């Protein structure tokens, strides 16, 4: 079985996680409170690799057999988080189990991919109609709403690419596209009203970057300065002034890409994009060579998840999308997210490694 492990995908993932740990160390250097975070992240990477090995060892079809029970457990955890979770920075996202702090919302991404793939493989033959749209919406919408209530809008938002991936792969009917499109257009103004004021400001900042450079636009502006000032080859490791002097916000989490771009320059940015592309490309390859529809769906949903989250994060760091708390997969600090994303890649490896087995 070892021979069938997709080495490029594994190596690219480990490289991304390794770069992440290094830059978590770099960007927290000199800050007594968070100096040791990179060690935590390294520990979590070990946990993630062990978990990934378990995920790969069990056939993906078995995982999909128990997809719904797993999803249900995660939903229960999400409810528990709302009731007993630990509040950090205004969000109730963490379940504390002894020394371990768990973010069920990250696990929910993984189980949602499983649940949606098995739903699509079992139920959908002639494309997604209104009824299927409703059911897909239910599977992904439940965790989305529960996470939105924490309220962690960033993480909730990462479910949208997964749903879009599912609908695309399931084969959306034109009628549904039109109806859905109209519905989105009609509810958009309502959504605008429902948004908190600062969210609105953040959206407006994308359109007018100089709207409020020291307030809402501060993060986006500092992030752009960090990236731009990196130039072609970067300022060198530990030499990024924007990050080392703390001009960058959330530099070891959501804005870690800007730290890498500042210290490694354009070369480093392209390396990062290349590594992400490699992981995604391996996922697409796994989807194409999968021996059943389930494998194709599963690989593609994980691809949609990773691609979507990466796009939102880098788009935000580049100031192209509103500033919203979405971490960069594999790289940003966060144990649950790392384990979940690595286990996502493990599903891709799982599908690929079983392509020739009957």
């Amino acid at each position, binding site marked *: 079985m070892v021979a069938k492990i997709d080495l490029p995908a594994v190596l690219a993932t480990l490289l991304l996680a390794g770069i992440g740990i290094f830059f978590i160390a770099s960007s927290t250097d000199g800050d007594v409170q968070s100096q040791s975070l990179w060690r935590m992240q390294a520990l979590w990477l070990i946990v993630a690799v062990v978990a990934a090995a378990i995920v790969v060892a069990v056939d993906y079809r078995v995982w999909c057999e128990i997809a719904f029970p797993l999803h249900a457990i995660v939903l229960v955890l999400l409810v528990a988080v709302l009731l007993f979770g630990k509040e950090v920075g205004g969000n109730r996202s963490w379940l504390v189990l002894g020394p371990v702090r768990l973010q069920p919302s990250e696990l929910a991404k993984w189980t949602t991919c499983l649940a949606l793939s098995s739903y699509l*493989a079992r139920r959908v033959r002639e494309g997604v109609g209104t009824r299927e749209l409703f059911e897909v919406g239910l599977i992904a919408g439940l965790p989305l709403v529960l996470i939105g209530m924490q309220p962690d809008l960033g993480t909730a938002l990462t479910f949208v690419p997964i749903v879009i991936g599912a609908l695309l792969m399931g084969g959306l009917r034109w009628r549904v596209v039109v109806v859905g499109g109209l519905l989105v257009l009609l509810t958009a103004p309502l959504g605008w009203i429902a948004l908190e004021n600062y969210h609105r400001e953040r959206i407006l900042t994308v359109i007018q970057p100089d709207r409020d450079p020291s307030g809402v636009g501060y993060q986006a502006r500092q992030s752009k300065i960090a990236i731009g000032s990196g130039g072609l080859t970067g300022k060198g490791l530990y030499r990024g002034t924007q990050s080392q002097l703390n001009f960058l916000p959330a530099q070891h989490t959501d804005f870690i890409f800007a730290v890498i771009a500042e210290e490694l320059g354009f070369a480093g940015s392209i390396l990062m994009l290349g590594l992400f592309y490699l992981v995604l490309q391996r996922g697409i390859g796994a989807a194409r060579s999968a021996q059943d529809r389930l494998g194709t769906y599963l690989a593609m949903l994980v691809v949609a998840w990773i691609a979507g989250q990466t796009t939102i994060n880098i788009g935000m760091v580049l100031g192209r999308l509103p500033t919203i708390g979405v971490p960069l997969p594999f790289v940003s600090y966060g144990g649950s997210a790392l384990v979940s994303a690595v286990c996502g890649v493990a599903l891709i490896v799982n599908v690929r490694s079983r392509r020739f087995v009957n």
Partner: protein
Amino acid sequence: MDYRERWELKDYLVGQRLARRVVLAHVVIVTVLLLFALNLWYLQGIGGDEYAILAENNRLRRIPMPPARGTIYDRSGMAIAATRPSLNLVLMREGIADLGNQIDLVAPILATTRDALNARLSQMRSRPAFEPLVLEEDVQFQRLARVEARREKFPTIEVQQTTRRSYPNAGLYAHVLGYVGEVSSLEGAAGLQLGDIVGKAGVERFYDEKLRGARGWRVVSVNNLGRRMGPPRDEQVPLHGNPLRLTLNSAMQRALREGLVDRSGAGVFLDPSNGDVLALVSTPTFDPNVFASRITRSEWQALREDPRRPLLNRAIGSFYAPGSTFKVVMAIAGLESGTINPSTTVYCSGSTTIYGHRRLCWKKGGHGSVDLRRALVHSCNVYFYHLGQRMGIDPITRVSEMFNLGKPTGIDLPGEGSGISPSSERKQARLGEPWYAGDTISVAIGQGLLTASPLQMAVMISGVATGRLPRPRLNAETEVVTTPLAVAPATFAVVREGLTDVVSEGTARRAEVSGIRVAGKTGTAQVFKHSAGIDADELPEEERDHAWFVGYAPDDDPRVAFAVIVEHGGHGGTTAAPIVRAVLEAFFNPPKPPVEIEQQDRQVAIAPPRARPAGSVAVGG
């Protein structure tokens, strides 16, 4: 059924459809990644240099370093205005989302209110974000300790070191030194920046450029909170201000200040040979230290609107009728114009009728037959009425202008006024009325259309004492300027003899200093018409006349010339003369070594004007 078989295998058709969708997804992903690469190239490849400058500016900050303002010394070398280090409590504004909350938390600990801080914060909106909000200036140690104790609640409050002007003697030199303050937007003169400290009044203002120095700067790296990181990268040391040595004699200044006690008035003591200002006091006074802090609007209003006008420097900016002190000018004009000679006599019966008006002498019984010397010594009004009548206004105008009346003296202080020299042309120009002969009669005893400041009177009497008119100076390093007076020595001799006798036998015996012969002339500036001929003690304070005493000492070798006015003081001989005596005492018999000055001054509170004996003579000098 095996778990593998429960899942439908791909058939050809379904597989093709799925493959197309996978390709579509692949294309979308590649497109997005290429767009990102393009965006990154735009930021890092093309915009790299530009953003590098932005990043550099982000962390490099030019921090101004205020210069230490020059120290001001009195003539003995004692510092009377100094610059001392001081601590300001400031709140960083940059990168802090919730300033309002920080203000709410810290306000109860400080001396100020939340509203005041919020108001100041909104004023700062247009200033660069790295400029912190000053919560409290010159913060006291106890308050600092209270804030430090709650450090974790106020992570962005810092203590800033600055310098601060201080006046160790509080109000003693207030009207000479003036005060300093932040440059106002109106004064945006050469090289000044908002926040610079400049002189606003007095010597501080007059010699501002000399005292101010030039601000330096320091380029430092800062983090996102504006906190300094590491050593400075570039530095321009501030250019400290130059010291200034004044001509003031502190012992005399103190004696003069204590002599005036709580009355409104002013006094100027000069060295008649060179114009050195030895003492200059205006009362009521104020504490210039108040202005060194951010003075509140209400404190400022209170000072401005105080009916006694403490901010006014009466010595150079208040103009009073000189009263009988003007008889000195009259005597010189009479002798110089040849209208009289020293032995010309006039009979005083206590009153006289001129141009149909009955004019009173201050002495009801009259002085009998008086010559010029006796007229000066006893301040006989009738003598000078007749002199004025015979001489006319023009010789008076000539001499009073020669003695610089009606013009600023040129002292090195801002805001000096001119006063009025009696003149028919001036009356025509100012009031559009011709000069009437009766006007001259009023001028003859120093009332009517003429006013002078205490400084002008001190300069005038210096001229009488030495024969040269000095330009008063406070800065000991400026040029001495004296102007010779075109007056016959014989004229001066007669007048000086008269002035000496005023103190030894006339109206100002209370000015006598042991071992020193003082020459001088008392006077009263009428406040109300009816006061002539009424005993001052019978009038309410605010209706009493202003009391003058001008003169010099010693009479044969003048080293000090003076003019003192006590508002509503009644008679110059009783109110102003004892003050002068105390100041001359401080000059001629100075309190010994500086260590003992403090003690002595505390013990020897210089006598306030003594209670006047009942029935003492009052009006008319």
